[in-house]
Structures are given as structure tokens and as C-alpha cells.
């Protein structure tokens, strides 16, 4: 599976975010294993340290912590985001957070196992874990997704479709399925149409037709696809499980998660700007510079603030919830302000996800207070 099923995960410094969506700077090849979903806590090893030396002698507790800091942590954040969406939408508590958590756990576990080799430099403990217990993790991930699907069936056709959405996106987005299909189609078409009549850029390897890249290798589109898929699942699953009609609040919640996801996806790019520029990968920080990117991300968070406030004014959200979101936005602005100014590589990977936990805690506090 190593070469053909690599979903979102970014093997740069051990940090990742649910929305990371472009190939790592260290490996710009279209066929390289890259990631978009991002790990969070494990810091990169010191320069010059052999790739496999770091994990040597790591005890079981250390490996367990590395595992918990990976897919389970991301799954927890995703579940909390779904709880936030549930609260914002004003629907009853359903199994949607559990389903989203399971799907997230499955997708990111598969990604970590698939990218174990590429992750060896950035997250050695997690890579070691993936190599040593890859099969067990794959079984756990598969059972997790299976359970999520079964739960979704109980929620009806829409819940089922939404649950399958991340998996389907993963197949067409991160695995080599799309390039494989592209090659097959290219070969078939090339058999009918002479190569000489093809456009420039075609090669013999793809049957005389242009190479079809994985979606994750297409800049901008990759971020949009990832952000949209997760935002749709987070937002619509609570609605589907609750069996209520989708109101205008749904669009606002979707926009909230979509835009926040965009910020979360671009923050790690600030951290990787030098490496990306060195290998010619174009990202916002590479194209516009770190300072402008920072202001751009401030602007996106500002748009989020405007959207949320407008929704509150329109009566779609209760003000206490808006305040909780405001806390999260403030935290996000703070994290964005650190972009390019801190040396700890893990900060820009972990902190954006931490803002959701903060929002979730505030909402829980608000609910407890009444």
C-alpha cells in the first residue's frame, strides 16, 4: 500500500493539521507520498541525526504517546469540531461526532502507515510505530471506518453519503487511483488517436497523454478539496443524523469551518517557506512572502468574524456561542501572528487545532453555566 494509498499527512516536522493539503517541500514528485493531514506534537529530530536512530530504545509508553499524538488526537479534534457544529446548528446531540472521529482516525491512521518512510525524518517515533505495528493499525483503521459506516447507515442515506465522502475524497485525492485511471484512459485513447496529434507535454509513459496528477498535487485545488470535504462532513452530519431540515445556519457553519480550515492549511506553509522555495513548490508564503501571507490569513479570519457576527445579528447563532467562536478566532489570530516569528516548528502544526479544543471548552463552559 505504501505507494498507492497515501492520504493527507505532511511529513515535515512532525506537525500536521486536519487541513494540510499540499505535498511536502522535501518531495515534490507527483508520485511521492505526501500529506495534507497533519500531525501535531512530535518534533523533528536534530539535524544530522540518523533517521532510525531516534526511535531506537523508545519504550512502549513513548510509542503509545506518539500514537496518541497522531491519529487519535486528530480524531479528537475532529469530534470536537463536530460538537461545535452541533451546538452552532442547534440540533440535538447525535452520534455524528463519534462518526466523524472514527472516520478521521481511520483516514489519518492509514495515511501515517502509508507515509511511514517519508515520515521517518519528521516524526520518527510515529514512523517507527507505523512500521512496527502497521498491520495492526490498518486493521484498527479499517474497523474504525467500518463502524463509522455502520453508524451512518443508521442515520439514513444522507448520513451514509456524508460519511463516505472523506473516504471517497481520499481515494480520488491522495491515492494513485486517479493517475492510474488517467493512464488507463490515456492508453485507451492513445490506441485510437495517433500520438502525433496529441498536445505538447504528453509522454510515452502515459500512453501519449498528459500525466493525470493526484488531486493532492494540484495546488489550491488540494486545499479547497480537503477543506470542503471536511467542512461538509463536520457541518452536515449532525443535521443528517438529527433528521432536521437544513437552514441558513448550515451555510454559515460550513463557511466557518471551510475558511478556518484554509487558515489551518496555510499556517504550516509559512513554517516550510524556505524548503518549499528551495524545491520550487509554490505556496502562498512562497508567492506573496511570509508577511503578506500573515496579513492574508488575518483577513480570512476577519472574514470569518464578519460572517459569524452577521449570523448572530441575523439571529442564527446565540451570542454566547459567537463569543466562544470569538475566543477561538482570537487564538487563531494569535497563532497566525506567530507565523514566521517562532522557531518551534511544532507550534504552527499543533496550535491551530488547539483553537478548536479551546472553542469546544468555552462552549461546554457556556452550556454548563446555562
Amino acid at each position, binding site marked *: 500500500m505504501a505507494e*498507492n494509498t497515501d492520504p493527507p499527512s505532511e511529513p515535515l516536522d512532525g506537525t500536521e493539521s486536519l487541513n494540510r493539503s499540499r505535498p511536502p517541500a522535501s518531495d515534490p514528485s507527483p508520485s511521492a507520498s505526501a500529506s495534507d493531514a497533519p500531525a501535531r506534537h512530535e518534533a523533528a529530530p536534530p539535524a544530522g541525526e540518523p533517521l532510525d536512530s531516534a526511535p531506537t530504545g523508545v519504550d512502549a509508553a513513548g510509542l503509545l504517546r506518539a500514537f496518541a499524538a497522531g491519529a487519535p488526537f486528530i480524531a479528537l479534534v475532529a469530534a470536537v469540531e463536530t460538537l461545535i457544529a452541533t451546538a452552532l446548528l442547534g440540533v440535538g446531540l447525535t452520534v455524528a461526532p463519534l462518526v466523524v472521529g472514527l472516520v478521521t482516525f481511520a483516514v489519518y491512521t492509514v495515511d501515517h502507515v502509508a507515509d511511514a518512510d517519508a515520515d521517518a525524518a519528521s516524526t520518527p517515533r510515529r514512523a517507527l510505530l507505523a512500521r512496527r505495528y502497521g*498491520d495492526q493499525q490498518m486493521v484498527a483503521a479499517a474497523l474504525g*471506518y*467500518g463502524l463509522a459506516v455502520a453508524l451512518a*447507515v443508521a442515520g439514513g442515506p444522507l448520513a451514509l453519503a456524508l460519511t463516505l465522502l472523506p473516504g471517497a475524497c481520499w481515494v480520488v485525492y491522495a491515492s494513485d487511483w486517479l493517475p492510474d485511471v488517467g493512464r488507463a484512459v490515456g492508453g485507451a485513447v492513445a490506441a485510437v488517436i495517433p500520438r502525433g496529434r496529441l498536445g505538447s507535454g504528453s509522454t510515452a509513459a502515459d500512453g501519449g497523454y498528459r500525466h493525470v496528477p493526484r488531486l493532492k498535487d494540484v495546488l489550491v485545488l488540494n486545499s479547497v478539496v480537503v477543506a470542503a470535504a471536511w467542512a461538509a462532513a463536520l457541518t452536515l452530519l449532525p443535521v443528517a443524523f438529527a433528521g432536521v431540515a437544513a437552514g441558513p445556519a448550515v451555510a454559515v457553519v460550513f463557511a466557518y469551518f471551510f475558511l478556518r480550515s484554509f487558515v489551518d492549511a496555510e499556517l504550516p506553509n509559512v513554517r516550510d517557506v524556505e524548503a518549499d522555495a528551495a524545491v520550487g513548490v509554490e505556496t502562498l508564503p512562497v508567492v506573496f512572502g511570509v508577511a503578506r501571507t500573515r496579513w492574508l490569513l488575518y483577513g480570512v479570519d476577519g472574514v470569518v468574524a464578519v460572517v459569524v457576527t452577521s449570523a448572530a445579528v441575523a439571529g442564527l447563532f446565540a451570542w454566547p456561542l459567537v463569543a466562544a467562536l470569538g475566543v477561538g478566532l482570537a487564538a487563531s489570530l494569535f497563532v497566525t501572528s506567530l507565523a514566521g516569528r517562532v522557531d518551534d516548528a511544532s507550534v504552527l502544526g499543533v496550535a491551530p487545532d488547539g483553537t478548536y479544543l479551546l472553542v469546544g471548552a468555552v462552549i461546554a463552559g457556556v452550556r454548563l453555566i446555562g
Partner: protein
Amino acid sequence: MIGLSSLSVALLAAVVTGTSAAILAWRERPDAGATWLSLLLAGQVWWTVFLVLELEAATLAAKALWYDVQWVGVVMVPVAWLLFALEYTGRDRYVRPGVVAAVCVAPAVTLLVVAAGDPYGLVVVDREVSDTMVGSFLRVDPGPWYYVMAGYTYLLGIIGSVPILQLVRDEARPFQGQSAALLVGTAAPWISSIVYLSGAVPVPGLDPTPLAFAVSGVAYLLALSRFRLLTLTPAPRRRARQLVFEQLHDPVFVVGTEGYVLDLNRCAAEVFGVDRRTAIGEAATAVVPHYDELQTGQGDVGPLSIVGENGRRPYEVTVRDVTDDHGRAVGRLAVYHDVGEYIIQQQRLNVLNRVFRHDIRTETNLIQGYTDRLETTPGDERALSVVKESAARIYQLSERTKAASDLFDPVSEPDPPLPVATIIEDAAADLRDRWPRAQVSVCDEVPDVRVPATLQAVVENLCSNAVQHNDADRPSVWIEASTADGWVELSIADDGPGIAPAERAVLTQGVETPLEHASGVGLWIVKWGVETIGGRVSFADREPTGTVVTVSAPMGDATEGERSGAVADPGR
């Protein structure tokens, strides 16, 4: 989960296991069978999921809709099973677009009929909601096409199970476990389906097949995780065995019990100049070299001297009966091992052993004896002469031995073929140079062909032998050359005393004994050199005196067509 029927809850277990197994199978792409197993499991999950939705739907129309959607999974399962079984067991040559399209025809027809609303009741004649204690489902009255599809499903299932069943008896334990798990996973829903069609289900109208998918999912999960299904597949074995047969450097023939050629590998076709397309089906006696000598019993036969594309080579033939699972002979296998190199190596060891054990020992004894004599009689000219001659013979023996080693150096690249005229002219010039009194005659018309360069050493040795061992005052040597059927015949005749019959016999038999052995190494170089290039050497007496040595050698640059006549006769 609240509000789900008990049947739906049970079905969700099948969804969990089926989905999990499908993901694990998908992960193994592009390994043999992975994609089809993923589709098989996806079909099962699809069927089950929409059965749950059918059960939970409130209206007849909704139930009917979800029932119809289930057909996608229903028709997908048998097709995917068959294609998985074929690919997984290494029969992927059947998994071609045409075959896939063919097996998909009936499923496609089914889906089209269902999608069109089944206006003529081909699939379902009537349907009604059946409220039972396990759930509310659609009770259908099957139409004729329903039974056609059921039969088609069983047919594909049985065909797919045959190769899987063969693996149960495989000697490799992992494949036994895999196949057993696969069969359990497949048999469970079939049995359920049969029970349903036979009307033996306690809940009338309920098709329990999707329930059995829970068992299938567990079995497939077990096969994937425990028995490393798809990670450890038997698919390459069939190809590998075929590859070994095809790429074997020894010619192999497969002959049926009726004596007709059933198969032969590429090497057999190349070495013996056989056209594979026409050879299969021909009588073995007309195609398989020396087949008459192979017909009795089995084991190793030979060595047999056979002329092929590489000239005349000695072959040892291993004959084995091919038997079926019941031990019945269904054919014979004949493997031809070219033992020429082996035989020559053995002979070289024997000759070198004799050289050291006999020739050099004799000469050193001679030297030792005469040097003792020189100690007591320093002026003994004869003794001095004997010592010198003996030392010269040792030197000459050493040179010949070195020449023999150079001749068969397996590391060095063979020299390119030489014109026959050049070889003859060089040999004649060497003779005239070394023995000016020798009369060397070369035939007027030397064929303008090339022969392997090894023949140069052969001719030189024959010519020098012809003069060196000739006691005539003016030794005469005649060198002639001719061609026929891609072969060159070189004859060197002399008027000497002739080669002793015992020495010829040793060369013919290829074995020396302490009592019967050749003198020196020269004739052995001739024999080995000729055999190395796939030629033949023969000795004949010349009237009134002398010997005629004839060397037959394949032309060095002859085309296949020029030599085809030489290999057309399998018994030659």
C-alpha cells in the same frame, strides 16, 4: 441506533466487517486479486446497507426503491468473486476486458431491467410489505429473470471456487488457510441463499443472505490479517513455474501417453531447430531426438550424441512420467542435459592426472637415472643427450597442457570465426617452417567459408602429429577441405606409421585407464576442440600407409537455413 429493527442491527455487523475487509483489500492494490476482492466486499456491503435502508423505510415505495438499489450489490458479488478467484490463483490471462465484459452482460441486463422499472415483471412479479418480529421488509414474488440471475450467480460462484478449492490441498500452509477462509466467506452467503430459495427460512420472504455477509466479512478479515491474503498470493507461482519451463537452458519436451508432442520449451525449439507451432501434435518420434531410446522406463538415459543447432553434442536425457492427482500417467517429460562440458572436464582431469602420474613421472625417472650415471661418468654424451631430450619432452608436454587450458578457458570470449583457407594456410606454413623436409600438399579448391576459431588449434595439432610421429625421410601431409549441408569437412592425411588402435580406442571411448591411455595431449586437444564446437572427428587408415583424420565442423557463420538439413533428422 434507537428505533432500528433487530434485523437491521444484526445487518450492521456485516457492514462493519465487510467495510473493514474492503478497505484492507483495497490497500493491497495492485496485488493480484486485490481490486476484485474490494469490489466483492463492496458489493456485499452495498447489498447489506440498502437492505437496512429498506427495512427502516416507512413506505412501500421507499422500500421498493431501496430494494431495487440492492441489485447493484447483488449482481456485483458473483462477478467480482469469479474475477478475484481467477486473478488470485494466477489465472489472470482470463481476466481480460473481453471476458469481464462478457460476464457482466447478465448483471447489466438485470440492472437495466430494474432501472427501467421492470415493466414486464421479469425480476419481480409482485411485492408487498411483510411486517415480522425481526423487521419490516419487502416480500417479493420473483420473476423468471430472478431465477436466471440466481442460477448465473451460483454458476460463477462454482467456477470461481474450483481454483480456490485446489489451493486447499496445496502444500503451502498459508495458502491452505487463505483458501479455507475464502471458501467459508463465500459459502456462508450461498448457503443462506439456497436456504432462502428452498423456502426453509423461518421468517417467510426474508432473504438472509446479507446476514451471512457478517460471517463472510469475518472470514475475509481473518484471511487478510491472519493468513496475509493478497500479501502472500499464489498468483505468481503459476507464471513462475511456466517461466522456469520456458526459460530453462535445457531442452524439454512433453509427450502425451499416445506418443504425440504436447509441449516443448523455447530452448528445445532453438537447440533442435524445431518449429513449435508445427511440432505440437506431431508424433514424438519425428520431433523428439532419439525418442525411441527414451520410451522404455524412466530415469536418466545417455549420453546420446545428438546434432542440433550447436553441432553434435552429448546429451543425458532425464525422462519422467507426468501423473495426475490419482497417480495415473498422463504424459512424459524428457529433459535434455548437454553434458559435453561436463564430460570434457572429466576427461581433462583424467588426462592431466595421467600426464602427471605417468608421463612426467616417467621422464623424471629417466632424468634421475641418467643424472646418477653422469655423476659417475661425467663425460657420458648419451646420458646427457637423454636428459636433454627428456627435459624437452616435459617442456613440450607443458606447452600442450597450457594450450589445452587456453582452449577451454570458460572466462575468455571465443575468438571470431576464421576462414578455412586461413587455418589451412597457417598450418601448412607452420609445418614447412618447423619441418623443412616435410612435403605439405593443400587441395586446390578450399571452400570460402568460416569455421570456429578453435579449429585452428585442432588442425595445427593434427598437422604436427602427422609429421612428428612420421618416421619417413620426407614426411608427406595432405590437407583437404570440403563443405556439405552447413558443415565443413577437413581431412589431414599422412604417410606415417598410423595411430595405434589402442590410442584410437581411448579417444573414442573418452576414458583412459592406467593400462590404456594415449601418448601426450595432442590428440586429446583435437578431440576436445572438435567436441567443443559441436563437431566430430574420425580416423581411418590410409593405403598403403598412414592415417586420414577427418574433422567435421559446423560453419562458423552459417545461417539457420544452411544448417537446417543437419538438424532435421531427430535421430541423427
